[in-house]
C-alpha cells in the first residue's frame, strides 16, 4: 500500500487502488477532494489561503497553496490520469476550514478559504456533494483510492466518514 502524503500547499492524485491519499492536521486550511468515478482517480489539494494575489511568486512555486490557483492545478494534474480537464463527472468533497473560538472577521481564514474554493468550483460548474467545514478542531484526511472512501480524524475523537 502506497501513501501519497500532501503537505500544506501541495496537490496530487493517484489511481492506484491500493494507495492512500492523505493530508495531516488541517487547521484553517481546506482540503479539496476530487473523486473521478470514471477513471477511479482520487485528487486532493491542501489549500492554505484564499487568494494568490498577495504573493504571485509563491503561487507559481506552489499553486496548491491558494484557492484560485489550486483548483486549476489539481484539474490539470488529474488529466494525466485520463480525467476530464474541466472535471466533468467528478465528485467533489470539502473538509477543514476550522476557526479558533470567538474568532473575529480578520481571523476567519478558514471560512474565507471555504468560500473562495466554492466560488472557483462554481465557476467550473462544480459543487461539493459533501462537506465537513468550520467549527474549531483540526482534521486529518485519509482517502482510500480503491474504495474512494474519505475518512476524517481528529485527536481525541473517533474517526468519521465524509
Amino acid at each position: 500500500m502506497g501513501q501519497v502524503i500532501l503537505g500544506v500547499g501541495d496537490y496530487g492524485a493517484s489511481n492506484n487502488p491500493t494507495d492512500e491519499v492523505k493530508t495531516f492536521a488541517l487547521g484553517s486550511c481546506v482540503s479539496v477532494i476530487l473523486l473521478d468515478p470514471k477513471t477511479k482517480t482520487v485528487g486532493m489539494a491542501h489549500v492554505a489561503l484564499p487568494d494568490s494575489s498577495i504573493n504571485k511568486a509563491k503561487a507559481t512555486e506552489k499553486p496548491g497553496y491558494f484557492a484560485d490557483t489550486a483548483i486549476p492545478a489539481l484539474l490539470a494534474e488529474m488529466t494525466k490520469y485520463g480525467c476530464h480537464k474541466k472535471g466533468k463527472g467528478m465528485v467533489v468533497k470539502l473538509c477543514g476550514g476550522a476557526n479558533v473560538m470567538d474568532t473575529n472577521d480578520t481571523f476567519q481564514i478558514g471560512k474565507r478559504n471555504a468560500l473562495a474554493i466554492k466560488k472557483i468550483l462554481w465557476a467550473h460548474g462544480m459543487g461539493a456533494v459533501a462537506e465537513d467545514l468550520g467549527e474549531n478542531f483540526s482534521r486529518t484526511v485519509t482517502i482510500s483510492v480503491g474504495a474512494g472512501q474519505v475518512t476524517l480524524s481528529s485527536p481525541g475523537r473517533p474517526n468519521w466518514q465524509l
Partner: protein
Amino acid sequence: MKTISHDELKKIVKSSPMLSVSASRLLQLTSNPDHDLMDVVNLVKTDANLTARVLKLVNSAAFGLINEITSIDRAISYLGERFIVSIALGDCVGKVFEKKLAGYEAASGDLWKHDLRTAIAAREVVVQGGMEISPDLAFTAGLLHDIGKALISDYLKDSAPEAIELITSHDSADYLDAEEKLIGFDHTQAGFELAKAWQLPEKLAEAIRYHHSPAEASEAFRPLVYAVHLGDNIAMMGGFGTGSDSMRYRLDANYTDYISLTPNTLASIMLTVDSEFDKLEQSVASTGEDKR
C-alpha cells in the same frame, strides 16, 4: 480523573530539567530592551559549548554559506539572537520541548514544532503588525509559551475525549477550562510555576501565564502577551497545534488595541511562518546530533 495538588505540581516542577547558567543569563539579557548584540556575543563567548554549537549552525548546509564563518561575533550577527536563544534553550531543556504530549494525543516533536511556529508567528505579528516591542523577545516568549503542557500532559492521559465533551457540551469555555476541571490546573498555571523555578524574567513568565487571556497581563507586558496570543492562534490555524486541544481556545479580539492586522497582513504572516519554519527547523535540528 485525579487532580494535582499544588504541592504535587511543585514536585513536578522540581523534577523538571533546569536552565543552564548561560541560557538563564541569555534570557535575562535579551529581555532587557537596552541590550545590544555585543552583549549577546560577550555572553556566548563565556560558554565554549554554546560557541561551538553556534559556529556549527551558521556553517551548516541549511545556510549554504560559501565562505566559512569562524568568528563568533560574525556568526551571531548573521544569525540574529533568536537563533542563539533557540540553541541555548534546546541544549539544556530540549527534553521539555521534545516531550511526547500523550495527554493531548500528540506525537513527540509536535510541541517543539508548535512552539517554533508560535515563536516565528509572534515575531511576525510584531514586525508586520506595526508594534513597537522587540520582535526577538516576542520570538523567545513564543518559544516558551506552552512549557506547561509538558508538565501536565502525563496527568491528562486518556482525558482528551472527556475534555472535548466538556467543551462541546458548553460545560467548559475552552480547553484551558477543561484542563482545570479535569486535573485542577491548566497548562498556563503549570508553565508559570516552571517559569518561576527557572527564574524567567517577569515578562516571559507573564507571556506563559496569560497567553490565552492577554487582557489579564500587567499593562506594561500586554503588547508582548497579545503578540504571543496571536502567534499561538496562527500556529494552530496553520495546522501545527499540539493534538486534541488545537483550535479549542478563544481569540481575544481586543488585540486590535495593540496590533493592526488586515486579512492580507495575516495571510502574509502565515506565508512567512511557513517559509521561515522550514529554514529554522532544519537548521536547529541539524546541529542537534552532537547534543550533550
